[in-house]
């Protein structure tokens, strides 16, 4: 499984991007991410729930690819589905701690 995470907007208007190949992660981390994707019901989430942009909020684009399928979701701080938020938080956290290194 591969996850591509992109964050734009925010009060600085900066973009950050992160690609994660779950195969390359330690097993516990990879398992945790798979669980968050499952718990988000990711493949059933609407493609675009970004709504009318709210000033300074972040916009997110998340793509999850497996061997058989791929799904992309556009969302924002204001409109993200509750079940997606734990995954969003985990990906944001990873993107922040890898700032500066080219993902």
């Amino acid at each position, binding site marked *: 499984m591969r996850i591509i995470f992109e964050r*734009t*907007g*925010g*009060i*600085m*208007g*900066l*973009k950050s991007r992160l690609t994660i190949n779950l195969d390359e992660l330690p097993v516990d981390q990879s398992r945790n991410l798979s669980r968050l994707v499952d718990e988000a019901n990711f493949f059933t989430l609407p493609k675009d729930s970004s709504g*009318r*942009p*709210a*000033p*300074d*909020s*972040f*916009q997110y684009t998340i793509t999850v690819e497996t061997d058989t399928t791929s799904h992309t979701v556009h969302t924002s*701080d*204001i409109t993200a589905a509750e079940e997606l*938020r734990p995954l969003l*938080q985990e990906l*944001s*956290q990873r993107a*922040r*701690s890898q*700032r*500066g290194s080219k993902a």
Partner: protein
Amino acid sequence: MHAHHSILCITPPHMLQEIVRNGSPTQRDIALQTLITSEQIRGQRRVMKSMAAFMATAVPSGNKERAIYDVKNGTQLPGTLVRGEGDPASSDPAVNEAYDGSGVTYDLFFDIYGRNSINNNGLKLESNVHYQKGYDNAFWDGKQMVYGDGDEDLPVAERLFNRFTISLDIIAHELTHGVTQYEANLAYWDQAGALNESMSDVYGSLVKQYQRKQTASEADWIIGEGLFTSNVNGVGIRTMKAPGTAYNDPVLGKDPQPAHMKDYVRTVEDNGGVHINSGVPNHAFYVTALELGGNAWEKAGRIWYKTLTDKLQERSTFQQACDLTYEAAGELYGVNSLEQQAVKKGWDAVGITIGGDAPTGCLSTILGIFGMKAPAEN
């Protein structure tokens, strides 16, 4: 008092009454004192009585009402109420910063422009602190302000951002998004979005200047001073004085703001670069304010306020903002007044001419969606 008094002595009473009605608390006190004193000299004490009645009824008393909520690292808005209006200070600095910062912002809008809160009708100012964990941002969600704690969850050596309530101008920036929503309601994309952003930076900076009692030339015009940790090579997230120079950092990159239309950034990201191209109107305001001298919130701030509340519309462009601030300055201070000339100089400095046809940047956004590059629009 005497220095003020001598100036106010030559002011006609109807103007003093106007100051009593619309001035800042300090201006009101001075004006009222002057009115009373001059009436005493004339032996017409009964006027004092009527003035007291006037003060009780006719002076608008703003109803500043603040509420600070703790989101406790979650995302449910609003969080738990932790400080209401008039409540004693908290032991949590983020709570107090949000409380005090929204208070000073209310004061600038009320004292100087006579505006009673975000909707000009006493709307409660609601702020949420400790949003999420490691949330390096602040936003206005259409109803309330939301602040993250920056990089509090990372090791100190990796932290770039402090908590977002740390900068007064960030708080005022967010609150001004609310004012804009109730007034011009500028769309949050392309040039209208960059104007929306710029209004928030303008009043963000003016609130800081008002609190510090700084003139246009004394002010630093930095947005988000104190927001970066010492790990970042930068003074803040933007600068209205010299857009494009706020930071230049190995991790964050370089401040991408243009200070002139020739460097306008055509992009589809960030809603068409609303936080990038705001550098152009930001700098026009700065040049205007510097040209006028004195306190920027008085004249430049008033011209922009009139433009925001009476003239700009949802899809306004930079060219329209230029023409309409010029028009507003003419209405407030007279056609060909120094104030109107200062507005012209401000926009000239960023490459936009009164009555001209500056590119709108909209075509490039449409083309950008299809992965194409726009030709030079002029």
